[in-house]
């Protein structure tokens, strides 16, 4: 594992989730739907050191059982990594209210 000087940089960010039920069914659906609209490899962790799971898999996202008031860490790698992280943070900060991919809520 080489953590230095990656040609394809891994970007990371974190966001405090205040949704009153945590990463429950509906927020998880929205999060994974949004993640899937990006080409970048997107991963979710509950600590800055991981473990990291695929943020495009609702099965894996639900298994984190992240309760309310958890800090979510995202890691992204790929061409649209920066935009993907910004969108995910906006979704969490917006309390998962945003419509994803134009679908009706």
């Amino acid at each position, binding site marked *: 594992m080489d953590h230095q000087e990656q040609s394809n940089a891994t970007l990371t960010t974190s966001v405090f989730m205040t949704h009153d039920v945590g990463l429950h069914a509906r927020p998880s659906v929205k999060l994974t739907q949004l993640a899937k609209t990006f080409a970048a490899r997107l991963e979710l962790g509950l600590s800055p050191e991981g473990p990291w799971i695929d943020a495009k898999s609702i*099965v894996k996202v639900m298994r984190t*059982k992240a*309760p309310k*008031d958890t800090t979510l860490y995202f890691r992204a790698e790929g061409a649209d990594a920066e935009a993907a992280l910004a969108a995910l943070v906006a979704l969490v900060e917006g309390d998962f209210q945003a419509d994803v991919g134009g679908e009706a809520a």
Partner: protein
Amino acid sequence: MTDSAPKEHCVRGEAASPGLLAGRIVSHQAAAAESRDAGSPSEEAAALEAAIAAAITALGLMVEASEGEAAEILGFQVAMLEDPTLAEEAYAAIAEGRAADQAWQDAMAEQIAVFAAADDSYFQARSSDLEDLRDRVLRALQGAGEEQQAVPRGGILLVDDIAPSTFLAQDWAERGIALRAGSASSHVAMLARARGVPLVLGLGAVQADAGTAALLDGEAGALTLAPGPEARAVFQTRQRARAEETLALARIIDKPVATAEGDAVAVLLNVALPEELEGLDPAICDGIGLVRSEFLFYGRDSLPDEEEQFAAYAKILRWAAGRPVIFRTLDAGGDKPIAGLTEPDEGNPFLGRRGLRLCLARPEVFKVQLRALLRASALGPAKIMLPMVALAEEVEQARALLQAAAESLGAAAPADLPALGIMIEIPAAALTLERFAIDFASIGSNDLIQYTMAAARDGSGLGYLQRVQAPAVLQLIAESVAAAERMGIEISLCGDAGGDPEAISALLGVGLRRLSMAPPAVGRAKARIASWSESGGHGG
């Protein structure tokens, strides 16, 4: 077995969705456990793929036919099935020669176990969504199709638990559900409350033949099997009264209430756990008048830590959406012992080291709660209420601990300390209220009655003494209300009397204008308040 004529038999459970239904028992057969014959790995993989696709199609059709919460729950199930991760393990087992149905069941058993082991009741309840998915795909694999037996009108479905999609697959008007297991925070319980389907759960190992006559009581949380004529007649009377009442209450429940003379009365809720608020519209109340925080401490091996307490308090404040929330600090002791905290062998626990007395004796436990409350108070108007207070000095000690807790939080402490108040439940507090430096007070009528009338709350044959209308109790309340007015502080009442229509008249009569009660009592309480007038009690 020598069963004679069926005998009336009442089983107690937990009321999860209100309603009264007289009908007959319907019981579903458990999903058939027959195995298929395994084909080649590629045939089995194709069979599983087809079954999952069929399940997605069926659920997709149901999503289109639903809206709101129901559509969300089904949408979640579709998303889970569409995720290739879900069946990954099953395909791996198939490649090693397992039959598709066996492989799927094993893979899902692991997924279900992950959620069943969750600490959070919400995530725990998701195991039933996964069981639902498991069975739906299994039925498709086994060619069983959608042969779920429909519940006819008047049917009371008696099963261990019920899957959300099974619930959503049928009309539940004039039907009810009785579960041997189940959870009040499951999707099905939320849906049942939203749709007004009576649901009683936690009935245990009750057995009844299909077709057995039964009374389902979603208010008391009971199922009466083979009811006799008397039980039926009583039930019918309650049903009629409830039907009329429901119509009348629906018009007033989510609106502010005032007496007949237009004097506004605040209606507040008593809650123990945040889960009780799920599915409730905050518009039915003006805030929360009592959070019984000790419920977070029950039935567990260790005391809840600061994070867990913070999460629970935060959830309640967010639900209240800006309405005030009164958190009562840990009220252990008396009839509420907590292992490792309360004194094990007090001769007279109700007169012992309980409530604030215990917290002052165990400041390390109290501090954890105060820190959690202080942090949560950043999220909404939280108030802190001390139980079992007799002397003004006790409040000063608690205030010092609150300030110390705030200092220990440093930058995480709120700019302003939350309002600090007391419960009036010992006559000493009622008689000397003006000596207390407090921001609010709330009358705990259950204990105030017990301590004023020297009549134990659980004492039998003492009913005539255990009434808020007893002259001495009412006088203490009237004097407390008058004192609070002179002090310029809010005063409410949060005992059982607050939601009892008979008691409400007496309480309004002595000047109380803030009443806190259990959520199911709100409708009736508002109706009583609206018909009450200062000059003449209750009008037509």
